[in-house]
């Protein structure tokens, strides 16, 4: 059992929880994730580790209230426990130690994952810019934490209610047009955002890493459900990723596969498929 030590509701669709899990906290690096299951009847879902406290032995996750499990997770209170938590999973994000400047782009809840990547570069003395995009001012998360772990924070919202108005892609294009040079771009957020970022960076020939979120079950390479096509090859995101070279990823395939259960409701021995 893994006890929730702290819970913060960040906004109408995002929550942050801290869970006691020393074996995970001890090892986790930027870009790695956990798979959790709330109770015996629960589903296994993957969530990225936003940060951890090695002394307290805790990991902190930020999750979007999407469906079944994430909504149920919101009902697990401080002091209560969840049944299973396994991690850290996935290959840690490769942190460039010698880059002249990198750019980390986060979209929405993706900023929870962008933050540790920016921080790891910052702590390695690599100059790092962050473009953090949100829907509107109400959805801004981690602003202070990100700001104190990067050189320049460019905050944008869709409606301009905080920071500049517009998408992260527009900000990236603007910076590149102004002549800012990046050795490496990291993009973490909605799949469509990562796809658009890659289209821009491909034109400028900038190496781009994306963090993919296919549907997972085990997270240890056993089911193949998390397979994504990268450079024409099938990769398992849980063991080969979740980070991949964005210029090689088949984003459309990923978008399609991730909608697999959108309209499939549970059926049992009746064999009915509710599509």
């Amino acid at each position, binding site marked *: 059992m893994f006890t929730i030590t702290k819970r913060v509701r960040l906004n109408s669709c995002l929550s942050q929880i801290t869970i006691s899990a020393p*074996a*995970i906290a001890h*090892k986790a690096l930027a870009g*790695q994730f956990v798979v959790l*299951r709330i109770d015996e*009847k*629960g*589903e*296994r879902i993957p969530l990225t580790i936003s940060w951890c406290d090695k002394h307290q032995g805790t990991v902190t996750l930020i999750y979007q209230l999407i469906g*079944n*499990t994430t909504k*149920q997770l919101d009902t697990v209170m401080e002091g209560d426990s969840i*049944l*299973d*938590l*396994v*991690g*850290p*999973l996935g290959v840690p994000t490769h942190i460039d130690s010698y880059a002249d400047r990198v750019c980390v782009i986060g979209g929405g809840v993706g900023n929870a994952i962008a933050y540790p990547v920016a921080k790891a570069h910052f702590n390695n003395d690599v100059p790092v810019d962050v473009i953090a995009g949100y829907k509107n001012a109400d959805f801004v998360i981690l602003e202070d934490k990100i700001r104190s772990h990067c050189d320049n924070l460019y905050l944008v919202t869709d409606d301009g209610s905080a920071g500049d108005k517009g998408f992260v892609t527009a900000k990236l294009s603007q910076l590149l047009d102004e002549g800012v040079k990046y050795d490496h771009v990291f993009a973490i957020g909605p799949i469509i955002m990562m796809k658009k970022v890659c289209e821009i960076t491909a034109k400028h020939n900038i190496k781009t890493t994306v963090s993919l979120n296919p549907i997972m*079950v*085990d997270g*240890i*390479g*056993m*089911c*193949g*459900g998390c*397979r994504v*096509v990268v450079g024409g090859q*099938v990769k*398992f995101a849980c*063991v080969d990723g979740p980070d991949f070279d964005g210029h090689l990823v*088949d984003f459309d*395939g990923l978008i*399609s*596969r991730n*909608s*697999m*259960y959108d309209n*499939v*409701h*549970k*059926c*049992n*021995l*009746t*064999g*009915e*498929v509710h*599509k």
Partner: protein
Amino acid sequence: MTLKQRVPMPLQDAQERIRNFDEVALGYTIEQAQQEADRCLNCRNPRCVTGCPVNINIPAFIHKITQGDYDGAYEIITQSNSLPAVCGRVCPQENQCEGSCWLGMKGGSVSIGNLERFVADYYNSHSHCATDPAITKQSRVAIVGAGPSGLACAGELNRLGYPVTIFEALSIGGGVLNYGIPEFRLPKRIVNQEIDCLLTKGVQLITNRVIGRNENIQELFDEGYKAVFIGTGAGLPGFLGIKGEELKGVYSANEYLTRVNLMHADKPDYATPLFIGKKVVVIGGGNVAMDGARVARRLGAEVHIVYRRAFEQLPARHEEVIHAQEEGIIFDLLTNPVSIVGDEKGFVSRIECQRMTLGQPDASGRARPVAVKGSNFFIDCDCIIVAVGTTPNPLIRMTTPNLQFNKHGCVVIQENGLTSMQGVYAGGDAVTGAATVISAMGAGKIAATSIDEYLSSL
């Protein structure tokens, strides 16, 4: 002497069982077990024993049955095999013990598996596991993976008095016995009873712990373990590499089975979703394909097995094939998948296949299937289960630079189970690639003996 017929295993009726997940084979009654045991000739040169990968003293345990001494029979079996209730059910006996039985040549080997199962079930129904063999040794041993190889290794080391800790990535132990083989072939209560029994005896099981991601092999030694056994299995599913395999509705057998066996997607009150399909095509002809097909059938689908060779070449156990046929599963043999076609929403809508004929034998000695030109056709379906084999889990390989692997990704070991790293042993599917429960257990036990020798020499 007239030869008596094999006593058939009582089965749940096929029409009944496709509507539940209860066990298909119901088990012998005492009378049936007696009758079957009487058939054994108690041979002086019992070939059955050499056919069993762990050399159970088969005539001796069968003789005990004839005397009505079932506990005595159990004791003889468990000297060589710590999971008789499991092996009696899932061993490919026709290629092993029963395949070598002298009576087999005369048209009916002794039903050794059924008798083994009878003895184990009888024992489990009235006995609790013996507790606490004293832990007499100092050196702690770490076991990676709680599948049959890891469990057997742990059980044997425990018996020898070693403190043992098993690290398991999933939320429960058992490996394929729990996540792969379905309930109707191997009830989970039996697997879990065996695991609980090990725990009662003092074996420690730490679940949700992924070696290579939490600690790696080297760090286990740093933590004070003196020897390590790797029993991580061959769980990485293979795909065909044909067009359309990324469509929605295409599952690996592992995923489909895991969603049902481990995550109970078949039960309405469990959260895991599953796309069941109205018409399911299963690709492959082994045990895994049969299991996937029979699960889909129980979930209400029309199920086709597409296999590129002929009936005689189906690698699955004969019994499973017959059971699948009885359950109304349609076998499209000498049929090879070519591509998968999707609808406008990205879901599977049909599969393109071609007819095959059998040509010259290939390297494996089996007739090579050859495509018939111009024979392509389509099967409409909304779900596809790919069961074309698995390879060893990659995590240990990715995180243990000093360990030697072969080109198939299998751990390289010596006869006694020792790997290229001192104090590190391995066995089971991680070494052989996908094989059998009993061979995995045998390997776990051999490694335990070697670990004992190694630790005693320190």
